[in-house]
């Protein structure tokens, strides 16, 4: 049979072409994956030397004074992300619940469209919005305005995923709860939401991973400071912003610290992404069982 096939003119050539094509496709996938490894390699090699206890806990030192760290930026990152999460979760979850309960229709479709629009808006435009709403009227840069911008960046992901997560809870679960005489409110909050929780937490982790390295909106919201600042009403230091400022500075010591900060950011993003993946896998298992 196989020998017969080879009698067809050009089949051998076509088979070779096929293998070459597959090899080409493989090379392209390998290039994409390898570029990640190259960038990661640089960040790890250059960054590892900069990271030590002082780097994690101290304030930045002035130019020329050796040592110093990004402790205030790490603190600021936690505070700003915390406030952003506190604001984004209720709005995102409620909108997700609304969309999952009311399905099709003009208003839900309009909301989905708006959510998609928001997910495509460049982060710098969202930074301008936060500036116009919270910085310009108060004439004061603040950590809170950065939280507001981060919230806007996290919302589309939270809305879409919580809608999907709630809809993926089998209808029979909700019907069972309603049949036992539960109100819609109790069925949603007591039965449906806990079932959808792993997927929602996954979305939250991914949303945090997405904004933790965002820098553009911070330039004119959090603005940065050289000191410890835990009051979100004031300008705050943020790790991503420090990396940016150090990177474009002409001083070798600061540039070295930029690599160190990058390593921290990349590490945080990867831990969050991996955590999200593990979480999702576990929730899948739960649904199958």
């Amino acid at each position, binding site marked *: 049979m196989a020998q017969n096939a080879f009698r067809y003119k050009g089949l051998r050539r076509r*088979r070779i072409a*096929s293998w070459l*094509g*597959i090899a*080409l*496709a493989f090379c*392209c*996938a*390998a*290039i*994409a994956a390898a*570029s*990640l*490894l190259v*960038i*990661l390699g*640089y*960040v790890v090699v250059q960054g590892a030397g900069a990271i030590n206890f002082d780097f994690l806990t101290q304030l930045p030192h002035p130019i020329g004074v050796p040592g110093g760290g990004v402790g205030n930026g790490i603190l600021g990152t936690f505070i700003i992300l915390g406030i952003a999460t506190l604001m984004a979760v209720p*709005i995102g*979850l*409620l*909108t997700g619940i609304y969309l999952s309960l*009311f*399905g099709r229709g003009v208003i839900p479709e309009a909301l*989905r469209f708006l*959510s*998609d*629009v928001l997910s*495509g*808006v*460049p982060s*710098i*435009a969202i930074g*301008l*919005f936060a500036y*116009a709403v919270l910085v310009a009227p108060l004439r004061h840069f603040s950590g809170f305005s950065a939280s507001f911008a981060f919230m*806007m960046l996290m919302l589309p992901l939270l809305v*879409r995923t919580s809608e999907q997560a709630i*809809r993926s809870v*089998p209808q029979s679960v909700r019907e069972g709860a309603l049949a036992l005489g539960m*109100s*819609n*409110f*109790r069925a949603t909050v007591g039965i449906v939401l806990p079932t959808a929780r792993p997927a929602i937490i996954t979305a939250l982790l991914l949303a945090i*991973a997405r904004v*933790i*390295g*965002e*820098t*553009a909106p911070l*330039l004119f919201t959090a*603005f940065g400071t050289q000191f410890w600042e835990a009051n979100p009403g004031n300008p705050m230091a943020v790790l*991503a912003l420090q990396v*940016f400022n150090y990177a474009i500075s002409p001083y070798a010591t600061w*540039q070295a610290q930029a690599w160190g900060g*990058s390593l921290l*950011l*990349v590490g945080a*993003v990867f831990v969050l992404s991996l955590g999200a*993946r593990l979480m999702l896998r576990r929730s899948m298992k739960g649904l199958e069982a």
Partner: protein
Amino acid sequence: MTDEPQFRRVARFVSPADRGFAAVVYGGSILFALLILGLFVELVLGSWPSIVRFGPGFIYHSGWDPINSKFGALPMIYGTVVTSLIAIVLAAFVGIMAAVFLADFAPRWLATPLSFLIELLAAVPSVVYGLWGLFVLSPFVRTALGPALQKVLGWTPIFSGTIYGVGLLTAGMILALMIVPTVTAISRDVIAAIPRDLREASMALGTTKWETAVRVVLPAARVGVFGACVLALGRALGETIAVTMVIGNRPEISASVFAPSYTLASVIANEFTEATTSIYVSALIELGLILFAVSIVVNALARVMIWSVRGSERV
């Protein structure tokens, strides 16, 4: 979806607790909608002085002179378009081929880790790309790639002139790295959504795996794959920090890809906190509004194309 009929049914709220719950849910959704509408309104309000003063000429004039309050966005529009085009030209082929490999050729044990690596590439923060671009890619362009290109193609205006290392080409290359995961991940999903029957029919007619993938499956998926590229283009248009770090930041229009330039996003990032006059601030916000409008159009276009292949499931 199988649960669609039930899903279409609207929930009814009768008990007092339910009414309270409904009110909270409505409230959250309305707040969400107001935030997005507010974003649009604020950008328009902020740029209004500039829109009134410069009119449509803002878009096609090329003088950017903050000291004399003369503002024209053309150099930034040019820089944004050129860097994004370089990025998509570099990223499209590699991204699509990687998607074909992951969807049709790769065994599972290889496809899963490769997909994971490529998706992690999308998660690396922009500022890290910028740092890498500034200290690794930019010297490489200045000392190796640039001179090599100039040696072969230096007779064209595109590859002529001084090679600074920072400029349109370096920014385009960084952007390409950043958008490859978008092209790959979405193209892979679109290609995987093409029915198996089509592949089986093609193989039954005696085509090789490669011929099936490239002549049957890819053409069937082309609208969605094109959509993936357009979506990636949208990401490239709005990317800020990495580009700001490697583009050279000069509001000039030059034919050479080695020349420093500026993009809509990078000029906002660089000059916004230094803008002293209110018309200067307004002009920068108008750049943001242009960026906002273009991203919406590009994104909407891309999503429609992707849905047409993959069904109504969202991107």
